[in-house]
Structure formats: C-alpha cells, structure tokens
C-alpha cells in the first residue's frame, strides 16, 4: 500500500478553520491538508470536533473563520449543494437513507443525481438499463441485497448502503463519518473489509472519522489526532501511536 502523504498533490487545504457553538470551540484554528488518493483518518475522543470538522468540509456546517481550498479554489463560502456538485460527498454516521425505497432505488436515485437526470418525468426508471446495471454492480460490491426497502435492512447493511450511495456519486473527496459506529465489534471488520478495497481500487480520496485505533492502523495511510477542537498530532499510524501525547488522549480506550 505505498507510502502516501506529503509530496503528492494536495486536494484539500484547510487553514485556520474555526467553528464555535456559543462558548464551546468545537473546531479551533485547524490547519490540515488532504492529499490526492490517500485515506486519511481523523481520530479523537468524543467531542473532539471530528464530525464538526468533517461537516465543515462537506458544507453541512458553516465556517466561522478560516479558509477551505478544494482543488486550489476557495470553497469556504460555497453551500452544501454546490460543494456536493464539486464532488465533496459526505456519508452519515447515522445512516440517512430513503427508508421506503428499496436499496436498488436508493442507489439509482444517487446515480440519477450524478447523471443530472432527476428532472426527467419520463420514461419510468426501468427504462434505464445502464443505471440499473451500475446500481446492481455497486450493491454487489457492497454486499447489500437489492430488493428490500432500506428500512428493513440490518444496521450493518444500512451503514454500507449509506456509504454506497455516497460512493455512487463518484466523489472526488469522500467523507465517511464513523462507518463502523453502532456496529458490533465482530462486524466492524466486515464492514471495513467491504468498504476499503473498493475505495483503494477506485483510488478515491477518503477521510474517515473513527474511534477505533485498531481499525485506523489497519486501513488508513495517515492519521490526524484531534483533541478539544485542535490538531494534536499527525503522521503515519505508527508515528501517531508512538507519540506520547496521543497516548494520553486516547488512553481511555
């Protein structure tokens, strides 16, 4: 899995990013880079600002101060929808699915969005065999049964479907918010073993927010440790793990 990190093209450049809710500084003057094709993990204890940072990059959360450059253009003032159109796609911690639609239709919906076909009033969706084929291929890759409504899928598959919908948009930057949260320890490995090879194969630049250091060391190229809204340390998983400051923060695990 070749060394990734500085030296490659920078896809995202964040400087002085800040967000506060009242007195609480959720994200406090964060500087970071994301490199083309890498898998970057953001770790930290609860309330360290990981999810807020991820949402600020996606546009789901507004930026109080600081700048966000995506592919060398300033996107700090762009909204969620515009950033999604540029290819910054966020996948939810708590699966946000279209509950009454089948998994296949959830996927097709994402594909129609990508193909700019959502304002087509005819023909019916069955008349798009290529979209159906691609949706089925993605579902196969993610090992999700296609015909059940999303609300009937077990939790692990709901998480996968959420990621699959984001993945179907062919993101330039994929933001995964705790893809294994709420999944049993046994299933965590399965979920990650399903997602990660797909991301590697397609060389998708990905940011993962994660609690579990074991998963982080196994699947990511680079780690950023956050504590109380700030970047505490960053580097390869081994570098970060051997950092004594990081030990203190993550010791409770």
């Amino acid at each position, binding site marked *: 899995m070749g060394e990734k990190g500085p030296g490659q093209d920078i896809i995202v450049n964040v400087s002085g990013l800040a967000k506060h809710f009242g007195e609480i500084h959720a994200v406090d003057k964060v500087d970071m880079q994301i490199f083309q094709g890498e898998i970057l993990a953001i770790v930290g204890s609860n309330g360290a600002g990981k999810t807020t940072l991820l949402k600020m990059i996606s546009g789901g959360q507004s930026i109080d101060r600081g700048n966000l450059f995506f592919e060398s253009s300033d996107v700090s003032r762009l909204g*969620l929808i515009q950033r*999604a159109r540029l290819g910054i796609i966020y996948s939810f911690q708590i699966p*946000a699915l*279209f509950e009454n639609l089948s998994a296949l*239709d959830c996927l097709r919906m994402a594909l129609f969005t990508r193909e700019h076909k959502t*304002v*087509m009033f005819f023909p019916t969706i*069955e008349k798009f065999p290529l979209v159906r084929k691609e949706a089925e291929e993605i579902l196969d890759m993610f090992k999700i049964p296609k015909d059940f409504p999303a609300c009937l899928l077990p939790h692990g598959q709901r998480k996968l479907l959420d990621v699959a919908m984001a993945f179907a948009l062919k993101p330039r930057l994929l933001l995964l918010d705790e893809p294994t949260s709420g999944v049993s320890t046994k299933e965590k490995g399965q979920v990650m073993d399903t997602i990660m090879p797909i991301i590697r194969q397609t060389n998708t630049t990905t940011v993962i927010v994660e609690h579990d250091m074991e998963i982080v060391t196994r699947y990511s190229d680079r780690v950023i440790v956050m504590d109380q809204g700030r970047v505490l340390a960053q580097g390869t998983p081994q570098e970060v793990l051997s950092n004594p400051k990081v030990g203190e923060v993550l010791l409770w695990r």
Partner: protein
Amino acid sequence: MPRRFNFFLMIGLLILATGPAYFPGFTIYLLTYGMIMSIAALALNLLLGYTGLMSFGHGMFIGAGAYTVALMMKYVGVHSFEILIPLSILISAGLAALVGCFCTRQIEIYFAMLTLAFGELLFVLCSKFYGFTGGTDGIRVKMPTLFGYVFRGSVDFYYFVFSLFLLCALAIWVICNSPFGKTIQAVRDNALRVGYLGLLVMKYRLIAFIISGAFTGLAGVLVVSLTGHAVPELFQVFTSISIVFMVILGGHTSFLGPVVGAIVFVFLQSWLKPLFFWQFFLGVSIILLVIFLPGGVLGGVSIWVRKALAKISS
C-alpha cells in the same frame, strides 16, 4: 401479488368502460364526477403520498380551472375544450408556481396552512369582485365543444372524461415512476440526505406542486363542465378537504388508492346528502377509517384479500 392486482384493475376498468350500457343515468353522472375527482386526487397524492407535502389548498386549482372556463366563455366567447383545457392547465400551473414559491420554502404544517390561506384568499377575491366574477352567484357555464363536436348526452361526456381520466392516470403514474418521481420520494423520506447528494430540495417540491396543480386545474375544467356552474366555493377549503379526504379514504400509500377514494367519496356523498346532517356521517366515517383502516380502503381491502387467500390456501 402484482398479478392479482392487475386482475382487480382489469375488472375496475371493464366496469368503467362498459358502465353506461347498464347503469342508470344518475349513476353515470356520479361515475363521471368520480373520475373527474380521481384526477384531482391522483394529482394531490403526487404531493401528499409521493413528495410528503400536505396541501389544504388544492381547491384553488379546481377553482382556477373552473373560472378559466367560465370567464373565457363569458368575456371572450371561447367554447371549445381544445382551447380551454390547455389554457386552464397553463393558468393552474402558473398559479401553482406563484403560490409554490411562497409555500414550498415551508414544510409540514406550515406548508399546509399556507396553501389553505392562499385558497381562502382566492375564494374571497372571487366572491367579492362581483362585477367581474358574478360574486357568490357564480357564472353559468355551457358544456364546451370538442373540435366542433357537441356533447349531446351524458354518455358522450362520460367517455370523454373516461379517456382523459385514463390519460391523466397514466401520465401521473409515469411521472411517479420516473427519475423525478423517485427523487420526490427521496425528498419525502429524507430531505436532508437529498441535499447532501447535491440537489436543491425546494426545487423538487416546487416542481411537484406545479405538476399537481396543473392536473387539478384540468379536473376543475371538467367539474364545471359537468355541473354547469362555476361558484367561488370551488376555491374554498371544503373542496380542498374533500380531495384530501378522497386520498386518505382510498389510501395514499398505493398509486390507485386515490381513485378508489374519489369514487367511493362521490357515492357516499350522494347517499348521505338526503340526510339532514350528512357531514356528521362523513366525519364519523373518517374517524372510523383512520382508526380501523389506516391504509385507506384500498390498503385495507388488499390486506383482507391477502388474509382470506392465505386462509383458503392453508
């Protein structure tokens, strides 16, 4: 399941297609009215069942369609369906676009209340501009012609409505199952996620509202042609609520539920009307319905049928 469903659909269509041969005149009239309201109910369900928006103002589109016909006849002297139908569809769509710009920013109860308010607004305007609209007296409307053809009996008109009904039902069905249709269902299920996929949710709500308004406007044209009288009450909340009632009665979770609801409603209304306080029974029936048949008539019946079949086969 789909095969059994098609069987019932075929029987229903057969009855509608051959009805005039054996039904008495009044039943034909009610069926005509039922099919017209079916168009409105299907259109409302595009919004209610598929987009997840409750409109209490769809009467305004019935009124818009009806008054387009009435005013065009009175002031311009246009008497033909081929002009009146496209024109009133355009006007209803325009009205929906205008009202929708305000309403679709809101959701749920706020959306419902705003649509209600716009409907009442138009009702008041229509009843107060006596000189132009005839006020509460309304305007008499003659049956329009179709490419010069004069509708002589109720059966002629019945088949005209029947074919428009089929056309509209098919069109709405295609829209509901198109990429756009899936998108509005996605909006209904999780608007937040639709935003994260990169779509502007409001745009889809607005388009759904416009489509829904346009079809309801067409129903307005047919209503006024059938009853021969455009009155301001068409804009009013009772018309809107009747359409909502039809959708709930038939079941908003299935595509054809609103059609069943509309036809059942029209017959129920005509049976109950001789009673002095018929609206009381209407109220009771909706209470019973919500408690015992939350999926509507079609939903409930299909469950019964399934249970009965399961019993037979076991």
